[in-house]
């Protein structure tokens, strides 16, 4: 078959700094396979598999720790934004109430400048609109669980991978013990 597509990773990464490229072929040989691939192989291979899995497990845990830190930072920032927005909404509500009161009082007075009343009404209307938007954004932020769906998914993937790797590592340890005996 003809290779018709060339793909170049256009990320900036140290991985590509070497001489030769790596094509994405499958590995085999019972070494470093999935659970199905652990049914054969020499003692030496078992040790290599265990070491590789342990390193993978550690790397996944490191990434999970980093993600957790990042998530905590994001949540802290989100909570701070919610608090700030809530304070703004409260201030606006207070301002609207005062303006409405003032507007009504002015309108009740004989000979009042009608233009000033209209301006106040306009200001009240604009504030109410802005507050509505602010409250809506706030609801959206709170409704999102204060997290990003992709971050949540990434975390879930990493946790599942960590658990699977830990199980596989335990299995390898057990198989190695059996081989030693």
């Amino acid at each position, binding site marked *: *078959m003809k290779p018709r597509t060339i793909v*170049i990773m256009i990320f900036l990464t140290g991985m590509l700094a070497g001489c030769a490229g790596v094509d994405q072929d499958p590995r085999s040989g019972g070494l470093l396979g999935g659970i199905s691939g652990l049914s054969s192989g020499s003692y030496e291979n078992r040790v290599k598999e265990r070491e590789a899995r342990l390193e993978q497990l550690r790397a996944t845990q490191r990434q999970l720790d980093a993600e957790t830190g990042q998530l905590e930072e994001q949540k802290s920032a989100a909570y701070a934004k919610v608090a700030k927005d809530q304070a703004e909404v409260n201030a606006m509500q207070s301002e609207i109430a005062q303006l409405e009161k003032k507007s009504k009082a002015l309108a009740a007075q004989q000979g009042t400048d009608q233009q000033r009343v209209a301006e106040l009404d306009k200001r009240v209307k604009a504030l109410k609109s802005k507050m509505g938007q602010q409250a809506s954004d706030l609801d959206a932020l709170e409704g999102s669980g204060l997290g990003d769906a992709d971050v949540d998914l990434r975390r879930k993937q990493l946790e*599942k991978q960590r658990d699977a790797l830990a199980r596989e590592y335990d299995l390898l340890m057990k198989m190695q013990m059996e081989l030693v005996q």
Partner: protein
Amino acid sequence: MMLVLSASCLAWAAPLEEIRQILREKSLKPPAESQLAAMSDENLLQKLREIDNYARYFESDEYHSPMSRRESWVGIGADLVEQDGKFFLAVYHGGAAELAGIADHSRLIEIDGKSVAHVDVESIADSLKGMEGTSVSLFVEQPGGRMSRFQVEREMFSPLDVEPITPGVHQVLRIRRFVGGLTKSALLATLDFLGRESRAATGARSDVLIIDLRDAGGGDLYEAFDVAGLFLPQGAILGTMCRRADDNREIRSTDGEKFTMPMALLVGPDTASAAEVFAGTLQQYGRAKLIGQRTFGKCVTQTDVHLSDGSVLRYTNAEVRLPDGTSCSGVGLQPDRDVRDAELRDLTWLVSEADALL
């Protein structure tokens, strides 16, 4: 076939006798002694390819295990794909390009106001690369024909091992590579996560699964078998590993969590190797429909051997037979629904076809 382009070079002496011995004793097709004798430090890479098209040699400091996941990268969050002289962006979920609004498999027309026509692929890639925080202006033709200009800021990015993409109401998951010990668990986590999300969302369906393998160039074969086993009953033959001297080993589906929803797999000429075995196995059991174009056609596996000086030899050590005993090498997999080039790049269109087929 996917390739990461970079200049090949060999700066120091390789343990040639060790390499000859391994190829002589373990490679799927033993090379002629004259071919082995002709290998030297100067021509090693070339001679290796003459013996085995998939064989590679890596010095210790340049080797990156295919078992490792992708690390975090700085960039626009896309791969550059060249097809018949045209350039496309394979966009990663959650990356800068996607966040800027660029649809996957958009055709690249201009970079920073300069046309990419008649420019070599390496120069284009260099123009797209850059430091974190810098930006690039991209003029693209999106699938469907709409022309748009985007400003994309390069940023740090960690791709997901299984990427959810959601045109319409279906669960579409993209796998670009089968990574040993990681892809199956990432898929399980994603199915669980999206299952809950879709139950919460109005109109979303979790009863049909579409897996996008168009850019899946392979990876770890056993991981691909393990993922296929999620969709087949315990004991089902997933494939047979055929080595030298009639050393054939059947791989069977294990017990554990199983999924029964109808499936469609999106495939194309870049779907290769482990991804082809995964797709072919599910197709032969009637467990999944294949939509797209004929796949690459590589049903052989390689293994990596660490040599005494720390360098690594990769060579072909087995052929993989699909459950019906056939190999996809040289012929690829024929999809149940064949599509044209433009349709193959249009995910929304493909998903609607999958919907009709399921």
